[in-house]
């Protein structure tokens, strides 16, 4: 096989792929053989027995309705288990942020390291990517991992994997995104954990993502209202991440990355029950990178304070 299986999900997907390929090939061969045998045996002028010709037969029809259907349901259930697994990142996964734009991938590590068109990850450890786009829809595609996820403007989508092979694997954009779509590529570099730790240390930037967020939190005036000591009635953000929030319009939402992002750029649509609509929109004032840093800072508050709000 040309394509390596370099993630924990790749062998599971390949098992289903080759099983379905085999099944489909078996059906195709059976039908081709039947077509050819009938075509030869019942060609005009042959002396094959044509008595007892059937024009319809309920039992036959039901057989070739129910047998394929049962096989389809089996395939569906098998695929279901893999698909839900692919959408259930483990809680201890390392979250890395990805921002796509025409025509590059920007990566922000939680410790503050930044990369463009490359992503360094440690072997054997779960990594979760929280991704958004600055412009059009892109798609994060790593063939060797058998993984792909569209990356949209205005929302976060996620993807997770456990790399199982050392080396460098191509990263491609799979969703057509304009002129240089074909060259919007990069690589995923899988390193041994110790080597990865050294890489992180060697590329430490200006403090962690959360620390940059803390700076922005002050410089953009967020702390003026959201600080617990503030006189203005605004929600306390300590321990907010991951909890369930009751909104003024009756909805309940989980305070995930997407929720926090929307709160900052479209606060009017995410009003928390019991608070006045006084927060201005920061749409256009913060880049996606700055938004991510703010979100990382708010997430870091979760560990510090007591959790609240969750029923």
């Amino acid at each position, binding site marked *: 096989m040309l394509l390596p299986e370099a993630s924990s999900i790749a062998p599971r997907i390949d098992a289903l792929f080759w099983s379905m390929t085999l099944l489909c090939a078996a059906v195709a061969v059976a*039908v081709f053989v039947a077509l050819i045998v009938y075509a030869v045996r019942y060609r005009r002028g042959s002396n094959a027995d044509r008595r007892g010709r059937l024009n319809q037969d309920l039992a036959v029809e039901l057989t070739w309705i129910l047998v394929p259907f049962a096989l389809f349901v089996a395939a569906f259930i098998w695929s279901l288990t893999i698909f839900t697994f692919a959408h259930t990142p483990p809680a201890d996964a390392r979250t890395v942020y990805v921002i796509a734009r025409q025509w590059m991938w920007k990566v922000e590590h939680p410790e503050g390291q930044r990369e463009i068109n490359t992503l360094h990850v440690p072997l054997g450890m779960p990594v979760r990517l929280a991704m958004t786009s600055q412009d059009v829809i892109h798609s994060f595609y790593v063939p060797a991992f058998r993984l792909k996820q569209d990356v949209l403007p205005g929302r976060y989508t996620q993807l997770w994997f456990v790399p199982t092979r050392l080396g460098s694997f191509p990263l491609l954009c799979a969703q057509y995104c304009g002129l240089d779509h074909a060259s919007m590529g990069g690589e995923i570099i899988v390193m041994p954990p110790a080597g990865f730790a050294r890489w992180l240390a060697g590329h430490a930037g200006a403090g962690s993502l959360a620390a940059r967020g803390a700076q922005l939190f002050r410089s953009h005036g967020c702390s003026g209202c959201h600080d617990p000591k503030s006189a203005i009635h605004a929600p306390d953000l300590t321990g907010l991440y991951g909890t369930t929030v009751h909104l003024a319009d009756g909805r309940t939402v989980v305070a995930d990355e997407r929720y926090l992002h929307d709160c900052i750029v479209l606060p009017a649509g995410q009003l928390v029950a019991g608070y006045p609509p006084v927060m201005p929109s920061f749409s256009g004032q913060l880049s996606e990178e700055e938004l991510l840093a703010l979100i990382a800072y708010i997430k870091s508050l979760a560990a510090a304070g007591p959790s609240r709000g969750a029923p």
Partner: protein
Amino acid sequence: MSTLESAAVPRSFLAHGHRLGAWLTTLDHKRIAILYGLGITFFFVLGGAAATLIRLNLITPDGALLSAETYNKAFTFHGVIMVWFFLIPSIPATLGNFLIPLMIGARDVAFPRLNLTSWYLYMTGGLFTVAALLAGGVDTGWTFYVPFSTLFSSSQVLLAVIGVFVSGFSSILTGLNFIVTIHSLRTPGMSWYRLPLFVWAMYAVSLVMVLATPVLAMTLALIGLERGLGVGIFDPALGGDPLLFQHLFWFYSHPAVYIMILPAMGVVSEIIACFARRRVFGYRFMTYSMLAIAVIGFLVWGHHMFVSGQSVYASLVFSLLSFVVAVPSAIKVFNWTATLRKGDITFEAPMLYALGFVGLFMLGGLTGLMLAAPALDIPLHDTYFVIAHFHYVMVGGSVMAYLGGIHFWWPKLTGKRYPESWARFAAILMFFGFNLTFFPQYILGYEGMPRRYHAYLPAFQPLNVLSSGGASILAIAYLLPLGYLLWSLRHGAAAGDNPWGARGLEWQTSSPPPQENFTHPPQVREAYDYEAPPP
């Protein structure tokens, strides 16, 4: 012009006025079918030229022939033209228009003026799309995904969208016309379960055209509003949702796949019954399965969005429904195969096309099952695996069936025989050329080559060269019928009224038929009554 008229041989519809004005104002369904035939042939050649550029460019990994910009415009033009100006009108507007009234024993369709209007709408839409090309082209892909198409593309998106929008009304009106015609103009004795499966297919496809196409029109209008006037519908910066576009687009465009394949299923049923000299096996199940495809086909659009960010639960429901819609297609393949059993089979060109259709459609359908499993769609989505899958269904399926149908009814349409050995040669060449072009693309897709790539990793080159080589064989196979069919108009032998010994009502009138279709009321019997002698 001199016409020899006798009481025995009525004047053919082709003899009623030769001037351009007579053709452009005709209300005769048979002439409108020919007008459509000329239109879709023109657009097929244009779309084929774009495909040629694509395959030439992909011979080298760096895409040396075209710039990225030109390449993007080439595949967009190929998709827009082939989907909306060839595949969707192909069989319904040409063979459907020509055959429905003949097959049900009617004089014309229910609304002849509406029929001509449909053709003008189609041509107007086509001209807008060609104008978009001449004005610089469009680079969004045929899917017009937002926010690229509304905010970021600086190409002629609006012109192309207007073209598709206008031609959509041609589909809606044609569907409406067919539904009313089939309900109200059947000759006495032609009950629903005596209808040829081709008419059933036209009925099912008309339902889809009438119900799905308005959603496309609406979606394209919303693109116009956002792009032209900045109304926020899909753009998140304006409070819109880009996934909303995909839902609306595929709500039309998945049923549109069935608009392309149902008519093909109808054509193939007629051909296989005729050349196996027997009734189609499981006639009733064939009708039910076509209606089932038309109905369930409306509920599977979300399988285009498994990796889009759509909710996991939605994806699973769409996946299950997509497996369900494969059942009626499987029924049809098995029934066609069973129709050959104990038949008295001959292998004229239409039959070769029909058998080729069954094989290629089956391979396209089976790989569709793999894509219906979201776990497999994660790696395969937006790769050449998908490209290969839908070309097997639409080109291997619909185009083979269209050409099979053109050959089968050519004697009826023109009164002339085409050269049989050339036609058989072309059909076989097409089958091999097609597989050589598109089978390597399945492998490319599995290995991870994304679609819409102007340049690619060098490891993918051998399979791409193979595919381009196949495409050149395919191009020759498509040009052959164009040549010998035109030749036969002048030099072909006279066809006679029923050269195949077929049983549909259309074979009971002269070739070509008179303007009023039948001079005597046709004799109606069970469909595919091949056991009895011809009437």
